[in-house]
């Protein structure tokens, strides 16, 4: 071998060798840079790598760009650990600042549009004052929640919670809290983005000072972080209702949350757990529902809201990427701990919407929007019918036009509750709640009728008239379709398994919603089932032995629902095996018959 070949071979060997060993240091490098190096071996390796940690902390964006560039060179296990880094924001000339008590790490850009206001005249020199204000605000929020009995948001290895300051005004966001890593079967860590200054006009800085916007955003978003720690599978409407409600518990003077109430009251015929979609603000979904938490907190204590989250924390994942419907959880909590029901408390709330006899935050009661009537009647007689989805309500105003005496006759299905008021005082119903009498009805009087569906079943109906005429109302036959994906019903299965939230019940509910209700035959079957099953379910629920039998009978159905092909194959096989002796017996009979003839 001549010298050229020898050199070439040496170069190739060196290149191959360097490639084979370079994956390790590269992996270690990125794991170290993103704080994911955990083993002793890695820590030793890190010590041997010359890295300017301060510089690396200030260069988050190049680091992430490098990670993206080198991604395919990393080992699969390293990719798994660092995948989330590509989802984190990249900041220009990133710096970080830890809050005084060490619970939060504020990530901020030193240059560019994401940079916070640069003023630096107090506190730590070299750190913008606004960044220190952010850190202090979050520490204040943290302390408040701990004092209220909430558990802090989980972080990996009790690291400080990551908060990124970004210019979110173009996206019209105050803040975003994103789930991250599971630390148990249901608890998950998270990280947060908030606006870098809250000075843009969309935040109304002339009404809400940037500090105030920061305060309510910190209170709101950090409660989401806490919620992720209780149970990742939380129902989004209730998460928003709670985060909004608690803004006012921590920062009573800001009062931005009152702006979300009118949208709900003017859309009161939509369900309490209406999905938080793109139209959330315009229909009052989620955010507007905070006032229901105010009612619960007033009737019980603010701790009741925390116990709702603690109750949720005890529930398992429903599976299938679904969240846990909060309405049954609230109902269960109110029944088991507060000697009430969601039905009673929702009705109590709907009445308070009109009576406005709120007790807490007395100086802000005037900020709570008044009820919004669905219709106002001034000519008589009246005959009207309303059908409501689950946990929804409707108000009707009556004004006099010469009549001095008014009787409202009510014909309703079982899930409807009604109330009538005259000038703010409730009128007692006559004859088993089927009519209300308004005497001495004057032009200055205000008469109001409340109709509420206080069940988790859609389609309850009320008919009311002023002349005694009546329209037939029929009990709803379809199941509830909860906005958050969970429905009601499955009575027998719920009775058999003991819980609406039992995984087997959820499988059956999923089957009903996604397959049976998609075709006419299936809908007819479901309607028949809901007509016949409630009494049977009640009976089963009261007998442990029957519950066991029902579970046994339901098992093959659940298996068929979950594993349709396998079940089908088994049934086919069974049918073939059964058909043979039956066919043989049939042929024997035929043969015998032929002989007899």
């Amino acid at each position, binding site marked *: 071998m001549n010298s050229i070949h020898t050199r070439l071979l040496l170069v190739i060997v060196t290149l191959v060798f360097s490639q084979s060993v370079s994956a390790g240091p590269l992996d270690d490098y990125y794991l170290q840079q993103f704080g994911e190096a955990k083993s002793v071996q890695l820590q030793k390796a890190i010590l041997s790598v010359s890295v300017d940690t301060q510089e690396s902390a200030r260069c988050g964006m190049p680091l992430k760009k490098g990670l*993206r560039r080198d*991604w395919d060179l990393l080992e*699969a296990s390293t*990719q*798994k650990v660092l*995948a989330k880094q*590509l*989802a984190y924001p990249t900041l220009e000339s990133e710096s970080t600042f830890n809050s005084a008590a060490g619970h939060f790490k504020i990530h901020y850009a030193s240059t560019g549009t994401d940079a916070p206001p640069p003023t630096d005249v107090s506190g730590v020199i070299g750190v913008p004052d606004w960044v220190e204000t952010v850190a202090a605000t979050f520490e204040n929020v943290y302390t408040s929640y701990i004092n209220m009995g909430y558990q802090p948001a989980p972080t990996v290895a009790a690291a400080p919670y990551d908060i990124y300051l970004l210019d979110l005004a173009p*996206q*019209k*966001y*105050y*803040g*975003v*809290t*994103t*789930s*991250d890593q599971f630390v148990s079967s249901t608890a*998950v860590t998270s990280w947060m983005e908030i606006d870098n200054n809250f000075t843009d006009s*969309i935040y109304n800085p002339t009404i809400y000072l940037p500090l105030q916007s920061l305060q309510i*955003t910190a209170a*709101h*978003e950090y409660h*989401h972080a806490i919620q*992720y720690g209780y149970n*990742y599978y939380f129902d*989004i409407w209730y*998460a*928003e209702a709670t*985060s909004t409600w608690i803004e006012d518990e921590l920062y009573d003077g800001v009062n931005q949350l009152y702006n*979300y109430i009118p949208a709900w009251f003017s859309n009161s015929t939509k369900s309490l757990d209406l999905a*938080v*979609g*793109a139209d*959330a*603000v*315009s229909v009052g979904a*989620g*955010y507007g529902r905070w006032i229901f938490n105010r009612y619960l907190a007033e009737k019980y204590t603010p701790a009741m809201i925390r116990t709702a989250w603690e109750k949720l924390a005890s529930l398992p994942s429903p*599976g*299938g*990427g679904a969240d846990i419907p909060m309405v049954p959880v609230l109902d269960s909590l109110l029944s088991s701990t507060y000697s009430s029901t969601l039905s009673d408390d929702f009705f109590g709330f709907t009445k308070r919407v009109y009576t406005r006899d709120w007790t807490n935050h007395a100086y802000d009661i005037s900020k709570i929007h008044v009820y919004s009537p669905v219709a106002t009647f001034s000519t008589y007689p009246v005959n009207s019918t309303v059908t409501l989805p689950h946990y929804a309500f409707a108000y009707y105003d009556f004004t006099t036009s010469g009549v001095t005496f008014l009787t409202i006759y009510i014909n309703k299905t079982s899930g409807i509750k009604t109330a009538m008021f005259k000038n703010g005082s409730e009128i007692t119903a006559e004859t088993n709640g089927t009519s209300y009498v308004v005497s001495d009805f004057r032009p200055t009087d205000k008469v109001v009728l409340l109709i509420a569906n206080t069940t988790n079943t859609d389609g309850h109906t009320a008919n009311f008239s002023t002349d005694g005429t009546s329209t037939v109302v029929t009990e709803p036959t379809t199941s509830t379709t909860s906005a958050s994906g969970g429905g009601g019903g499955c009575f027998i299965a719920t009775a058999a398994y003991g819980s609406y939230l039992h995984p087997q019940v959820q499988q059956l509910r999923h*089957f009903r919603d996604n*397959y*049976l209700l998609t075709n006419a035959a*299936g809908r007819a079957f479901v309607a028949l089932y809901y007509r016949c099953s409630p009494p049977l379910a009640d009976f089963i629920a009261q007998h442990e032995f029957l519950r066991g039998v029902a579970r046994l009978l339901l098992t093959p*159905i659940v298996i*068929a*629902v*979950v*594993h*349709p*092909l396998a*079940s*089908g194959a088994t*049934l*086919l096989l*069974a*049918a073939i095996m*059964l058909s043979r002796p039956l066919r043989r017996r049939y042929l024997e009979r035929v043969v015998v018959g032929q002989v007899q003839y």
Partner: protein
Amino acid sequence: MPKVVCFLLVLLLFLTLPAPAPATGNRPVDVWNFYHFDGIAFTPGPAVDGSAFLAVREKLLPVVLTAQTATIEQTVLPDGSGAIAGICYLQSSGGKLGGGSGYKAYPRLPVLISTEGKEFVTVQTDDHGFFVVVLPAGVYSVGGGPSITVERGIATLVPLRVGKRMVD
């Protein structure tokens, strides 16, 4: 077994059979069909907002496209194999100032595919959050989710929620 029971079991079988929903259901086998992710599920048609979408055709490997005019490379699925194509996404909800709901694709995320409780293969989402994997016909769990049946020559589309974003 009484005939009535047999009839009921067959009826049950009939009702439960539509449970798996492969992308090839009710579509011609000799043309490409497009599916985009709408934040909840894959729905027919290319994405109108310029985001990536899937081209699916029986017996061929599904393809992730970023433009309707893109040329689709045809790769035949190996004999006895099917495919799973999907997207990993963060569910976005809320928006105090409006417009926060939707989803955010999760790029470069490893997705574990297992069968019979054992790891079979790990694939990675692309820059658009999509992944495509060819698998022998069988039953698999994708990302720890519910079982998915892969049939020969057919692509099954799977949206995987890998996180939540509370947007306010």
